[in-house]
């Protein structure tokens, strides 16, 4: 960091307001510390706020204000009670609703399945990096599903996983009875998550490959010379070197799972069977659109927001810690 050559961060504003009489640009360039007039000082202090004001205003007006309205709205009633305060009534109803409990339980399930969702692209990227036969082909094939819309992916898997679909036909040809992949409440959620991982792991794979590009090849060679097995190479060399990449993929995959499963759910299971594949997003949509319960939906949205806030803060902590390690 060069010292003695500090330039004010807001030169144009200062130059403009101070009239250029006291401080000239050339004085800056020479590195001379300017004598600041009081007006200039104030301008300098407020300038950052003025400059970020448009962005802040947009966020406040279009994001924070509606958010607060939504929270406020969640404390009012629906239907005949429209507009009257009901306290925590909506929240009590939510937590008593088994369907909402299922939805929250499924969020927990997603968190539990997160390591799998990260491990799959990680492993495949490792194989590509280690140049298994046909790695170029796999690199493009793996990314392909990432460009498909969830609706198309859902429709494809609806057909594949149908009771009289091709997957069951293959199974029956080897003597295994048909499985109702999307009609069994114990299976359906795993199928949807599985399809979601299949459809989105391409992005994570690219991130991993970018991480591998920064990997020191000498370390790998050294490990090989020392006679390390593939497992030992992965465990002792690749994973420690890629820790930041892995953490980043964890964060992005988590966000993806919590916020973009709606399309798949809508097409593949519509929340069923027996309500087993509800997620908070889907619950909110049903309550608002189909059940005409906007205030209840607002309460559910507020809870989802809280969950995302906690998850987000945890992730920021995680990333900060990773940053410090470097």
């Amino acid at each position, binding site marked *: 960091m060069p010292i003695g050559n500090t330039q004010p961060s807001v030169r144009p504003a200062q130059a403009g307001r101070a009239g250029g009489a006291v401080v000239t640009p050339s004085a800056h360039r020479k590195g001379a510390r300017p004598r600041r007039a009081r007006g200039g000082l104030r301008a300098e202090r407020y300038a950052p706020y003025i400059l970020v004001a448009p962005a802040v205003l947009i966020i406040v007006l279009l994001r924070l204000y509606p958010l*607060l309205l939504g929270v*406020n709205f969640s404390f009012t009633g629906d239907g*005949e009670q429209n*507009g009257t305060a009901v306290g925590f009534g909506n929240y009590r109803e939510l937590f008593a609703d088994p369907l909402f409990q299922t939805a929250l339980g499924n969020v927990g399930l997603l968190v539990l399945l997160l390591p799998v969702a990260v491990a799959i692209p990680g492993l495949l990227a490792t194989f590509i990096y280690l140049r298994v036969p046909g790695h170029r082909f796999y690199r493009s094939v793996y990314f392909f599903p990432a460009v498909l819309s969830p609706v198309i992916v859902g429709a494809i898997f609806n057909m594949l996983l149908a009771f*009289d679909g091709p997957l069951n036909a293959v199974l029956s040809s080897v003597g295994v009875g048909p499985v109702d992949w999307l*009609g069994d*409440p114990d299976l359906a959620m795993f199928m949807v998550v599985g399809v979601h991982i299949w459809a989105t792991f391409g992005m994570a794979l690219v991130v991993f490959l970018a991480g591998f590009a920064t990997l020191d090849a000498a370390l790998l060679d050294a490990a090989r010379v020392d006679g390390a097995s593939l497992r030992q190479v992965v465990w002792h060399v690749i994973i420690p070197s890629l820790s930041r990449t892995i953490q980043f993929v964890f964060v992005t995959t988590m966000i993806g799972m919590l916020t973009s499963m709606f399309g798949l759910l809508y097409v593949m299971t519509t929340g069923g069977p027996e*309500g087993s594949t509800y997620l908070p997003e889907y619950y909110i949509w049903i309550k608002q659109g189909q059940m005409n319960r*906007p205030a209840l939906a607002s309460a559910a949205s507020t809870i989802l927001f809280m969950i995302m806030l906690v998850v987000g803060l945890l992730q920021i902590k995680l990333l900060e810690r990773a940053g410090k390690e470097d």
Partner: protein
Amino acid sequence: MRQRAMWSAVLVVGLALAGCGSASDSGKSTSSDGKLVVWDWKSGEPFAKSYLDKAKADFKKKHSDVEVEFVAQPFDQYYTLLGAAIQSGKGPDVMLFNGGGQIRDRVDALVPLNDYVTEDKQRLAGWEAFTKDAKIYASPVTLQGYPIYYNKAIYQKANLDPASPATTWDKFTADCTAIAKAGAKCFALGNKEGVGIQFWLSSLGSTTLTAQEYDAWITGKRDWQSPNVKRLFQLWKEAGDKKMNSDGANSTAMFNDSFALFQSGKAAHVMGLMSDVGHWQDFNEFLTPEKLGVMKAPIVTAGTTPSLPYDGGIGYAVAKWTKDPKMAADLVRSLSSADALKAFYADAGAIAADTTIDVSQAGPAVATLVSELKSGKPALHVALSSKTLDLMGRLSQQLLSGSITVDEVVKQLAASDQAG
């Protein structure tokens, strides 16, 4: 840093104060003079063109200076969008509704039409689905019913007489055994959305509940513990246990996978619709009118008489915030005028609400349906709230998978029904 924290605190407090009490307002109008905005999910489709042209022409006769704008919304988001419009108290002047729960849940935002539609009362059928507490909120356009269709070709293959389908439940299950031997399923069932049970309830309602029970159900005095009501759910479970339904019913979409199973001859019966989709005209693509039969519900409880369950299918309603309710009601009347409905029947393949329309050209199934309209009654499931229907859908899936008992089902449904 501290300053920034202070600023954000000020911001949050200020906003919180500003946010109080302004979440919902109502009663504002968006329509400018001389223009009516209509929301629906039909007007974008080619088959609705002649219907709308006729309706617009009829309206022009009464209000030549008023412009009408139709805004077609996607059906799967229709009620979400409408909910947002109702919440803000701004939106279309006239809007399309499904009969039953969808309109009854939203009557707060609608104008009662009783005084405007008196002349149409006789000509049109299906008013009950758009009525709440003796107030009419929409004029019916189509009739939606839940007949049982059957495939005559499969009956022949199974050595059954296609001209006289079973009239009792016992005979019906015996027929189904014969059909199974002939390599087809008895019912094409799609219950992925939980809608299959609704059709089941309504199709078999008239022959399972006594006439008193049926009427009491429609007027809101529902006895969920009655043996006959339980019987409806027991039959549903039995049909599943006896493998009478097509495979994987809980993962098969009713629209339109189950109807496709029926059309392609994999199942002998389907509880279908009269209008829009899954009906006589839809099936005609693969099942010619001669092969398609409509049967009365087989009698489950002795002493009952089968009747066709039907209600007003879709209808147009007037929003509370419109400037001139009389004018909007005139538009609603034009949308249900005889000429317009005739065009709707011919192009969209719907049983229109106007029962005076001649349908003799459309084949025997339609003729049977229309002849049964006179003795028909409102469908059982249409009388239930959308919340109870949603619950019933999930419970019906549990019944099929065997994870719940009939007693528990009626208990939960009774609780939901009484709650609202």
